[in-house]
């Protein structure tokens, strides 16, 4: 067997690639913004931004603010974590609430026993982009997560309504990233520096950087509800279980962290990143298999991306 010229560590290459994309974003756009949800992927983006723009000893600042689209359905642990991280980093955090979009009549709450504000986030995001004049939004989506995200570019063009046109994406050649947009047309760019990271890579990356991650990702006891369709959710003030639901205290962790209303727990006893990775390899489902928001139709993510979703 021919041995590769240099056995490269693929994790270092992923880091270099992502930092390259972050720096190109800062170079090519007038007013980029980093979207932060409190989940592991946007957490990784924050720490890669430190490596890209802050040479240590207190020097340097991110060339973009952080934007959190707050659905009001967050895990309290995620909000606490967000505030502690922001205090540590001293970067500029902007919060815009779906609640305000609903009050202003820009969005409407879902009804029923398990209402979600997942879809409504796109309205608040687009309004925030317009309010601040952001021309590029950096997100933590990965190709490995989901079948429409598997087709994303690094620089992914959106029209003035924030819509993705998956049938007509721009060619993206080599590492030449094209941030040009039609002037005056209200187009914007979505930037995905983590495109090539897998779920395992994200954990190995965070673990290697020795950074704190939200406690939600590790096994803990929690009151959970089993919906009639078989999906489990965390009990919260935002769900209204019908009598045919089962409510139980279970030992769980979360593989992805979205809203309390659409993120299903995994039954688990894994207390460390290493234990989570071992357990994930044995789970029958994929990472996004725990997201109820992906199951509303065959192309739920693609449809939301056409509405301006992350």
């Amino acid at each position, binding site marked *: 067997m*021919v041995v590769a010229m240099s056995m490269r560590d693929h994790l270092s290459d992923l880091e270099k690639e992502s930092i390259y994309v972050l*720096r190109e974003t800062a170079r090519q756009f007038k007013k980029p913004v980093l979207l932060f949800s409190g989940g592991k992927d946007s957490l990784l983006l924050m720490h890669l931004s430190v490596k890209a723009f802050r*040479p240590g000893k207190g020097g340097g600042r991110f060339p973009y603010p952080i934007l959190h689209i707050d659905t009001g359905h967050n895990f309290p642990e995620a909000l606490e974590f967000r505030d502690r991280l922001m205090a540590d980093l001293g970067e500029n955090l902007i919060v815009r609430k779906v609640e305000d979009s609903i009050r202003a009549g820009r969005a409407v709450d879902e009804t029923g026993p398990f209402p979600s504000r997942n879809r409504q986030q796109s309205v608040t995001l687009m309004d925030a982009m317009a309010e601040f004049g952001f021309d590029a939004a950096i997100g933590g989506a990965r190709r490995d997560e989901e079948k429409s995200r598997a087709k994303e570019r690094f620089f992914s063009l959106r029209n003035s309504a924030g819509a993705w046109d998956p049938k007509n994406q721009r060619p993206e050649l080599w590492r*030449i990233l094209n941030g040009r947009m039609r002037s005056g047309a209200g187009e914007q760019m979505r930037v995905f520096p983590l495109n*090539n990271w897998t779920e395992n890579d994200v954990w190995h990356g965070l673990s290697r950087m020795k950074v704190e991650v939200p406690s939600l990702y590790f096994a803990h006891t929690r009151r959970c509800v089993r919906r009639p369709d078989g999906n489990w959710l965390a009990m919260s003030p935002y769900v209204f279980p019908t009598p045919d639901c089962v409510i139980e205290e279970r030992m769980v962790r979360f593989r992805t962290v979205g809203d309390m209303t659409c993120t299903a727990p995994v039954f688990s006893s894994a207390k460390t990143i290493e234990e989570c990775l071992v357990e994930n390899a044995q789970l029958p489902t994929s990472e996004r298999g725990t997201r109820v928001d992906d199951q509303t139709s065959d192309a739920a993510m693609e449809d939301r991306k056409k509405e301006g979703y992350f």
Partner: protein
Amino acid sequence: MDQLRIMVCGSVDDGKSTLVGRFFHELGQIKSDQVQTIEKASQKNATGREKSGVVNLAYFTDGLRSEVENGITIDVAYRYLDMAGRRLVVADAPGHFEFTRNMVTACSQVDAVVLLLEGHSGLKEQTRRHLKIAQWMKIPRILAVVNKMDLCGFSQEIFLKRKQEIESEAGMAEITVIPACALEGHGILSFAGSPLSWFRGPSLLDWLKQVPGSSVFGHEDASLRLSIQGRVLGAGSDEAGTLAVIHSGRLQREDCLQTPEVSGLVQVLEIQIGDQVTNHALPGDPVFLKLDREVAAGTLLTLPEKGPLSARRWKVEICPLLENLDLSGKEFWLRTLLAEKKVRVLPRATSTPGGFAQNEIQEAVLEFAEDFATDTRDFSGQGDLGRFVLLSLETGGTIAAGFFLGV
């Protein structure tokens, strides 16, 4: 873990997505919720050979609404797999002529190519085009898979005929050719016990284990190419620094570098990666530099006497990626890793309207407003700076890919 990035390409309906789906399935890499999605799509859209309740594994990568509805691949999908000691990135490219731009996109991101053709029908126009593009983009390893061998009775004779055809099409380049039947899984992991067991060569999996991987970034032993990406924002002026990335070669502290634009040398006083001060840096390293003078973003730095060529007129090869492009005599943005400049495509006499055919590789001459310094495609550092794209002045969209050949 090292990394191998491959693209699966070839003409429409030669079985690319089915091969990718089958490969992941055989290795037990498709999770139960993904299987459910594939089954649903298969039931809804049973066509051709996949009829009669058989699960169509092509839906593992064909995930867009219009792809599922039409049973085709429109844009490249990326899938990831860990083999022993190796990360495999698989790009499943579309076969249609009109989506060649997405195949070119995929091709620009890989180290090796798996090219499919059908045993019974052989090479088609798009098979030839994909092979030509992969060779043009200097993909060093190509595996040709003669697929659908079930439709020609698993005949060794037909396989050898196809092998000869593809080898002569590939010319001098080294190409490995194997038979397979992706639908039934023969030749994917092995040939043992299959109707193709007469074949004495690597299976798809064997080949993927042997092929050398490579890096997204350039070679360490080539000449130094470093570009400035901007400045560190911050309060205290003694913290100010320069953001830069190394495309090829090795940067040392105290190196004196030249730029094509400015006379005199720029000295590297300090190199930092993350929060670590270091004496040298390698390709891809995102560095913070302290230089003895301010250098603008987009500037190329090299060692003296080892810089690139510089000229106003450049001979290039381009591949226009959209239909009905009027290139001749027109102006565009030309974008390289470094910078973006306005160029004019000099007119030339051809029979094609606009002078240039879509998805064909053609020579052209580009004229810049002033001297432009860059490498040619034969630069040993992997030719990173020898590559460019053309952008529409009106929409900003990427309309062509190209290489600098010389001045």
